[in-house]
């Protein structure tokens, strides 16, 4: 077992330092790059917080949808092949809901401020 602080605590501390102490001191193209870097650290903390449970739910849905077992990647590969071949489509029970839930979970980590995502959160 690894010791504390947690990864999330470490990354947050670094991101907060960059945001409050370094950002005011940097100008020009490097200020843009710094912002991208801070966004990346924030994304990592979101994924650490959210992905374990969303991945588990995704695996459960995929097993139900496909009636087979496997890792998350294997199951996604299998679903991709079935959609490509036409064996599974939007008339297949559960597909639409599965794709929406999976995509919403990705956006919650990747780009929670994306306007389409915020609109769909409200539409739930």
């Amino acid at each position, binding site marked *: 077992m690894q010791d504390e602080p947690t990864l999330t605590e470490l990354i947050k501390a670094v991101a907060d330092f960059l945001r409050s102490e370094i950002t005011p001191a940097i100008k020009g193209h490097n200020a843009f*790059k710094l912002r991208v870097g801070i966004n*990346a650290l924030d*994304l990592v903390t979101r994924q650490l917080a959210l992905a374990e449970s969303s991945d588990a739910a995704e695996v459960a849905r995929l097993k139900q949808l496909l009636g087979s077992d496997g890792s998350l990647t294997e199951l996604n590969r299998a679903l991709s092949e079935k959609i490509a071949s036409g064996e599974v489509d939007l008339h297949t029970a559960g597909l639409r809901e599965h794709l929406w839930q999976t995509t919403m979970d990705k*956006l919650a*980590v990747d*780009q929670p401020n994306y306007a389409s995502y915020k609109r769909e959160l409200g*539409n739930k």
Partner: protein
Amino acid sequence: MIEVDLGRCVASFLPGATGVTGAARLSGGASQETWTFDIAHPGGNIGAILRRAPPGYGAAPGRAAGLDAEAVLMQLAHDAGLPSPKVMHVLKPEDGLGRGFIMARIAGETIARKILRDEEFAIARPILARQLGRVIAGIHGLPRAKLPQLRSMTATREIEDLEREYRSFNWPRPVFELALRWLRDHDPGPSSEVTLVHGDFRHGNLIIGPDGVRAVLDWELAHFGDPMEDLGWICVNSWRFGEIDKPVGGFGTREDLFAGYDEAGRKADPDRVMFWEVMGTLRWGVMCCGMMQRFRTGPDHSMERAMIGRRSSETEIDLLRLLAPRGT
């Protein structure tokens, strides 16, 4: 020092030019550069832009039209009265500046967030969609006989290209599969009319002033194909920058875009435009994945490239909104 080479170059084509000042690099990757500079002239300084592949970077990759073709297209657009900068000089080997061209610098804004939010553009925003419809129609009407050699694309080939690129990433994406399947099932077939297509007509490649559009830039992806492709591409949600209820660039309606297009003597086909909007949404998603691949394997190991990989999910939600809207 680029100013010395540029100074010698401008003196060769512009009588009276005495040199170059204020040269600064604007953007671009390793293979293509954009520079802004002023030509010193007794009649007053002249703002100019150099677009070039530096010496040693000649070959145009895959889809690119090539800088020589871009120069011809910009000059043709300029001559036809379209908003396009005058091409002042096409580089020659003896200029020692690589391949490319020098054009007049046009004042205005290309950054979408400023165009969509700043007071300065408040009058332009409601008229832009119609104006751009007319400009796109003008581009599609440029005389075929004068156009340079360009690749030809059809919807079917574009789907194949996107699928091949997506499969090369070897990373399963059920939403992209759904979109590819939809595109194959809804491929409208060859366009009854094949025209010049700009290929990248969107924010970033348009100079906008308080009075509206001033210049169309970056003809790198120009090709022959279905003219509805350009109308679909500018409606892709990725170019709305948060203003998702205004499909044309976050500032206008499809109806205004089509009205401008029709005013200029052409006919928009809304169904084909919608097909190309889906294609464009997937294309941007695949491009995001491609940039991530280049971060991982190529020389451009930057945070920006890496983080663009985490924008491909934006196109997945937009594809679902288009193809599998909730509550239906």
